[in-house]
């Protein structure tokens, strides 16, 4: 008799689709639209080598004669056609955007992952252990909050650049960028997780786990962590947009991704030089892509926050 019931249990995927969250997703056009945009951009970035019509960073394939081709027109000298035009070097803007998004998204995801792991770990420890551990972790967080995140990131970037040997600087730039943004962003994860942990640790199931003799780390990982992940998910989504923007800002200021491996921010920096000379597309398309990416992720984060908040249902 027991197995009969087992058989009619729907699969996990099906249960997720039919869950409240799945229902709420299907009934939120904004969420569906932004997921579509984000997925489109991510797929474009991941498949850049296959989709991009040109390879913009292969000097051999560039033709300076193609420089400053406006979007949607054939070049007047060579007759080559570029969907979104070219920059001063004759690079295809569409292709540079696809490659630029790879860098932006990679840095964004990696930085958020770093911030999340660091922040969640420290937040759990602070909330559960309390005492000196908590005081030290949270005071460090408070001090860091008094500086704007971008300033902290620049500081870390500057220090890291100073201690890397010059010959590795360009290769290391991406990793330094991830480190800088990740370290500047862990505080909010830590704060939220600490707060949620303070609530969860007084729940009776945690007391019960203590009572059966589980070690503090087992309790934190198995019982508390899964129960504080909801807010973490929301913050991670919104942080992703912020990290991508932070990366763009740093790159725009010239301290981020190098021109040999440009991110969206680097492209915008390059493009703004031509803004007043009529070649608007070199700036406009990378900026529009960044806007679409950040906006969609933010909208998705907003929806997720509302959907996971029982009080707003």
């Amino acid at each position, binding site marked *: 008799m027991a197995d009969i019931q087992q058989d009619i249990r729907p699969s996990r995927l099906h249960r997720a689709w039919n869950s409240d969250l799945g229902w709420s997703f299907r009934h939120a056009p904004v969420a569906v639209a932004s997921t579509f945009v984000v997925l489109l951009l991510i797929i474009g970035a991941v498949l850049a080598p296959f989709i991009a019509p040109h390879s913009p960073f292969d000097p051999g394939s560039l033709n300076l004669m193609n420089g400053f081709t406006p979007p949607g027109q054939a070049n007047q000298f060579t007759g080559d056609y570029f969907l979104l035009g070219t920059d001063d070097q004759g690079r295809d803007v569409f292709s540079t955007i696809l490659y630029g998004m790879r860098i932006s998204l990679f840095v964004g995801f990696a930085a958020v992952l770093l911030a999340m792991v660091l922040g969640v770990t420290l937040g759990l420890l602070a909330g559960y252990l309390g005492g000196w551990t908590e005081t030290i972790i949270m005071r460090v967080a408070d001090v860091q909050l008094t500086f704007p995140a971008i300033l902290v990131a620049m500081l870390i970037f500057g220090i890291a650049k100073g201690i890397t040997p010059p010959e590795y600087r360009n290769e290391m730039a991406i990793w330094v960028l991830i480190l800088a943004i990740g370290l500047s962003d862990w505080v909010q994860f830590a704060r939220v997780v600490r707060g949620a942990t303070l609530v969860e640790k007084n729940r009776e199931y945690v007391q*019960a*786990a203590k*009572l*059966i003799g589980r070690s503090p780390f087992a309790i934190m990982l198995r019982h508390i962590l899964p129960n504080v992940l909801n807010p973490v998910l929301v913050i991670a989504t919104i942080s992703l947009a912020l990290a991508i923007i932070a990366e763009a800002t740093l790159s725009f200021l010239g301290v981020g991704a190098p021109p040999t491996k440009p991110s969206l921010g680097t492209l915008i920096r390059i493009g703004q030089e031509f803004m007043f000379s009529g070649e608007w597309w070199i700036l406009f398309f990378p900026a529009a892509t960044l806007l679409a990416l950040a906006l969609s992720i933010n909208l998705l984060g907003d929806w997720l926050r509302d959907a996971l908040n029982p009080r707003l249902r």
Partner: protein
Amino acid sequence: MTDTPVLSVRNLVVEIPTRHGVLRPVDNVSYDIQAGEILGVVGESGAGKSMTGNAVVGLLDSPARITSGEVLLSGQPIQNLRGEALRRLRGKKMGMIFQDPLTSLNPLLTIGDQLTETIQEHLKVGQTEAQERAIAALEEVGIPAARSRIDSYPHEFSGGMRQRVVIALALCAEPDLVIADEPTTALDVSVQAQIVALLKRLCRDRGVAVMLVTHDMGVIAEAADRVAVMYAGRLAELGPVREVITAAHHPYTAGLMASTPLASQGKERLRQIPGAMPRLGNLPDGCAFHPRCDYAQDSCRANPGPTLDTCDGRAACWFPLNIKEKSEVGA
């Protein structure tokens, strides 16, 4: 009664230091629980019932702490154990059933996971064996089709079923002592009776000592062998449940009995004990109950507070009520 009691609490004092002085939520409490026996602990909110239970299992939250007295588990003092030793001992020997089955199960783990976790922590058995034991434990507490429900999450159960799971969880590591902290308070009446009966049967069958903390005299009358009545952190009365219910010695116990609503009572006004329990920081002189006691005399106030030892051993009262007649109090 000749064996070493499973749990023996000796002159237990729990103190909380505050800005306004030291509070004593548990003051000089002593009792024993034998194997297979259910001791009911009753009292109003704030009488120190739960605090006593938490002190016994070592779950007191700072700054509350045990300042004197002993907690003996099978004759072994445990009140000073810390860290690893405490973890190992209390998990193996003690189980706890909490008030709210809603929050005493982890909402994100299946009940099977939670049961096997507990079983494997204490009995060195493999995954399959733990799973079988979990199913057996669920069947024992009366969960139908336990085998198919083991992968369900707590929210897929009703309140009463969930409390059964909690009981299975408390008993699956085969403890000697179970502390049930208001196990029926969050349940509706028909389910309460089932849970009480279940608890009673399980501890009889397994010879588990149970400390049943509640404010419901009906539950005590139904399940307990002996009852300890607490008032303002002290024991007011301690005795066999039949005797305490039919012939309370302490006026407070009598008042509690009289203020239990009965369906057969009709529209008669419910009796109540006038006043409220004093705040711990502001206990009256002498007997803590005297301002609310109908039988209080001047000496109740002048003399130091009565204890079980200084009185007749059953009620902490200088003028215990009559032993033979069912008492009429508050009239």
